[in-house]
Every structure is written in C-alpha cells, then in structure tokens.
C-alpha cells in the first residue's frame, strides 16, 4: 500500500491488518503506531526501491494511495506525484505480474455543478476541473486508472470514488473545515452532502480486494444530509457569508486558504449513485447516518 501514512492509508492499513492481511506500508513519511501484520517501507514510489520491493514481496494487490491533496503544494509537484506517480505504480505492478491494482479517487472529481444529475453514475465524465482547475491532476490520475481497465484487462483494476469520508483519522479538506469551531457557509446555499464513515472506507477497500472485482465504483455511505446538518453534527456553528465576501476573505483574517473552486462544493451538491459497487461486491456501510456524522471529533465553538 502506497501512501500508507496518509488519511486514507491509515484507515486502510488498520482495517486490513486487523482482518489478517499482511500489509507492506510504503510511505516517505514516518508512520506512527505500527501494528502487527504491517511492514513499513520508507521509500519513494517513483524511485528504484519501490520496484525492488514489489519484486521481492510479490504482493497479491497494490493499493495506491500516495496522492497529494493539499492545495498548498505547487501544481507541478502535485502533477508529478498524483498523475505521473499513479502511472509509474501501475506500470511497475503490471510488469511484475501483480493481479490486482486498487486506486482511490474521490467522488469530488465529478464536480459540484448545478447542471449535473443529482445522483451521478460512473458513466458521467469527471468534470470537476470546469470550475476547479486545481483538481485537474487528480482528474487525470482518475482517468488514467480507468483506461487501464481496457488497456490491461489481465490486471484487475479497481478505481474507488468514495464520497466525503468522516472520522477521527482522516485529515481531508472537509474534515479540517468541520473541525473548526465556526465555519463559513455560502449565504443562501445548503447543498446535500453524502458521507461515509472511515471504517466503512476500510470495508470498501476490503471488498475491492475480492478476487474478480474490477471496474470504476462510486462508494456511498448511509445517505445524504444538507451541509448545515453536517456542520451541526460536527459540533461547529455555521456563519453564512455572501459569496463575494468569502472571495475577499479567503486566506485572510484567519480564514482558511482554500481555492476558489472549492467554494462550489458549498453551493451545489456533488452527490453520486453508489448502486454499482453495492451490487458488484455486496458492500453495505456498517455505520448509520447519525454515527457517521458524529465521527468527526467534536469541538464546540
């Protein structure tokens, strides 16, 4: 598993190791709290050492999670890691005969666009870059993984596009947003949001490992609620601001430095249809709506 120290990586390593899998955790950064069944490898997936590792351990599957999602990092670095890194990992795995490759994208690649169907299926083009150009490297990596399905049908490729993952281990933009005591919202908008508990993300990875499973899958959790309910359940309080004011305040006066395109996700829903994954694998989230929404560490304003 590449990117094993990241948000999704920590969740997936823990879940799979607890269920008896031997996980070779690959990451450039330190991995605190190792557990039994986990072997740590501190290396760069784009360097020679990664290939040597795959040759040596002959993994049953590669789970590729080494992606940079923070927008503070430069576009060139993001492109190198997210797009070129994904291509490199796939190439290594394919040449060395790895049977299954699991990539993790996000449902956000579809974009929060008002002219989109409310429940987007996997057939829909990932259009996030229309209003959010900073996402283009993530969209490219996502599309790269999907084309491997027909270019290399001998490899079981799985591309997961989970909805917003909530939980104490994940440090996504949304979790950081909800973790603040007071959060701004866009005045007059309250889009529907889908959520998935981090344990259910682990479960989704487990299902993706099932032999025979391959394809592109949206992964949805127990349901949808408006953003305002999500904020309330996270223990934060919403401060609705006019859109024009948010554009000015962005990155100033203690306001988070978020790209302009991210604000669209506070205006329009980016909700998806998760039926295909449920039907293909029998996946059923174990956490209900209330327990998922309350999985964000609460911090009263």
């Amino acid at each position, binding site marked *: 598993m590449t990117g094993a120290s990241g948000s999704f990586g920590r969740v997936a390593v823990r879940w799979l190791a607890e269920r008896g899998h031997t996980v070779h955790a690959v990451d450039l950064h330190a991995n605190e709290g190792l557990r039994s069944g986990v072997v740590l490898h501190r290396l760069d997936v784009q360097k020679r050492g990664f290939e040597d590792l795959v040759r040596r351990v002959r993994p049953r599957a590669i789970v590729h999670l080494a992606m940079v999602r923070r927008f503070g990092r430069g576009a060139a670095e993001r492109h190198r890691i997210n797009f070129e890194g994904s291509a490199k990992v796939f190439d290594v795995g394919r040449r060395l005969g790895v049977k299954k490759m699991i990539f993790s994208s996000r449902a956000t690649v579809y974009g929060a666009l*008002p002219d989109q169907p*409310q429940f987007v299926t996997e057939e829909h083009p990932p259009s996030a870059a229309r209003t959010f150009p900073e996402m283009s490297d993530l969209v490219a990596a996502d599309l790269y993984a999907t084309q491997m399905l027909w270019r290399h049908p001998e490899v079981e490729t799985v591309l997961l596009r989970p909805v917003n993952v909530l939980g104490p281990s994940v440090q996504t933009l949304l979790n950081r947003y909800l973790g603040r005591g007071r959060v701004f919202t866009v005045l007059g908008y309250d889009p529907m949001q889908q959520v998935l508990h981090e344990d259910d993300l682990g479960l989704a990875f487990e299902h993706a490992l099932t032999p025979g499973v391959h394809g592109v899958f949206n992964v949805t959790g127990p349901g*949808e609620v408006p953003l305002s309910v999500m904020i309330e359940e996270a223990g934060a309080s919403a401060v609705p601001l006019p859109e024009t004011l948010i554009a000015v305040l962005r990155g100033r006066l203690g306001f988070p430095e978020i790209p302009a395109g991210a604000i669209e996700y506070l205006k329009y829903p980016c909700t998806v249809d998760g039926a295909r994954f449920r039907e293909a694998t029998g996946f059923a989230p174990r956490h209900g709506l209330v327990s998922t929404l309350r999985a964000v560490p609460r911090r009263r304003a």
Partner: protein
Amino acid sequence: MGTWTRPLRRALDRMVDESLRERYARLRVPLNAYGYDRWGASRDDQLRTLALLRWFHETYFRVEAHGLAHVPEGGRALLVGNHSGQLAYDGMLVSSALFFDKEPPRMTRAMIERFFIETPVVGTLMTRMGQLTGIQENAERLLVEEEALVLVFPEGARGGGRVWADRYRVLGFSQGFLRLAMRTGAPIVPFAFIGGEEMCPSLSRGEPLAKVLGLPYLPLVPWGLPLPAPVKVHIHFGAPIRVEGSGDEEDEVILPEVRRVEHAVSELIARGLAERRGVFL
C-alpha cells in the same frame, strides 16, 4: 436555513395542524433520521409550505380541480400542462391540488428551471420543498426508483414568462418529456391550468435588460412586481396518454406524439375557458 429565518419558520410552524401532519404522513416520503429525503426535501419545510399553500389554495385562489381521477392513485406518472403566471404559481397550485383534493394525497415533484436552483435562497427553498433541477436523469430516477408523480412544463421559460398576447396558447412543447415517458413507461397526464394568465399578466419579457441581468425573462406586470392577483383557478386533468417506444427514436417519430399531447392540453384549455363563469368567480 440560518437563524435569520427563525421567526418566520416559527410563525409557519403554528399554522401546521394535526390534519395537515396526518395528510403529509400519508405521502410516505422516504425521510432519514434528520427529516430529509435523499433529494433534499425536508419534512418541516414541506409542512410549512403546505400550511401556507393551504390558505392560497382554499381562500386566495379558491382552486377547483377537475378530473383528479385521471391522476393515478399510485405509481409513476408525468403531469404535463401549460405554463403561465411568471413565477411558477401554477406549479405550486397543481401540487397543492394533488395534496389537498386528491384521495389518497400525492406529492408532486416539479422539474424546475436551472436558473432558479442556482439562485441563492430560492434554490434552497425549492429543494427543501421537494422540487429539483429539470434534468432527464433526475426525472427518470424519480419515476423508476420512487414511482413518483413528476410535473413538467415543456414550454419551459417561454411559457412561464409568456406575454398577454400569447395567453392560453400552447407555445410548442420541447420533446424531452416525451422521450422520458417512453423510456420509463410512465403515462402522461395532460392538464390545463386556467387562471394563470390573469393572475399575473405580463406585457413584455423585457428581453434585452433580462439578458444583461442574467435572467431568463423580466416580466412587465401592470402592478409592478410579479405578484399574483386573487383570480379563481381551475385545473383540468385529462385522460392519461400512453406512448410506446424506447425514447431513442428519430425526431420524426417523436414529434407527432408531442403534438398529440399539445393537442390534448389545448383541448383541456378550451374546455376550461368555456366552462369558466368569470375570472374571479
């Protein structure tokens, strides 16, 4: 929706009585633990809207619905009718008629213009009331997965923003609804909305200025704001029309069927106008 609307919400909550709650429960809207359905409709906001709508329905517009038996008691169906009134008052009154006058009551899901969904506050309110963006996939999912009653005005903004000179004329239906009916096997229930032209007449669509302001149209209403006059409203539902096909046929196959539905709506309009005793009676 924010603390600033709390007094208004409280006032409307006082208008929600037991009979309304009971009737609403019969709709069996699939709500989650927070009282929302998956599209974003909210039980509390729907009840508040219905409480307000009840007064408009019974007292202000004195709505009379004819041929309600043509609307199926359950199962998918597409309601297709003439659009007027500048601000979708017709859509609201069709849904109130199906809620208050139909047995058992039915919830109507209207396909609305994207412009309204993109407008702050308005879009959120529409969503909470159970309406959604008029996109084929949304309508198809509602019909197939939820056996919903979907309301479509195939004249779109041309009908909504129509001028007085075009009153009670079917302005040409777009074909999306027909392909939708074919794809889903949903019967089309035509209806005529009588009273919409007089409640909020417009002399001009104000097109050049509307374009500058980014609006679909800017109605020129004699009394200024596009607020409705207390005319008497009649809604005439007609016999369901069934269309056969896959929905992927050429225009030559689709268009005659569209004309057939337009014709049915025109006939219902003619009947409604002939039977009406007066604009306010």
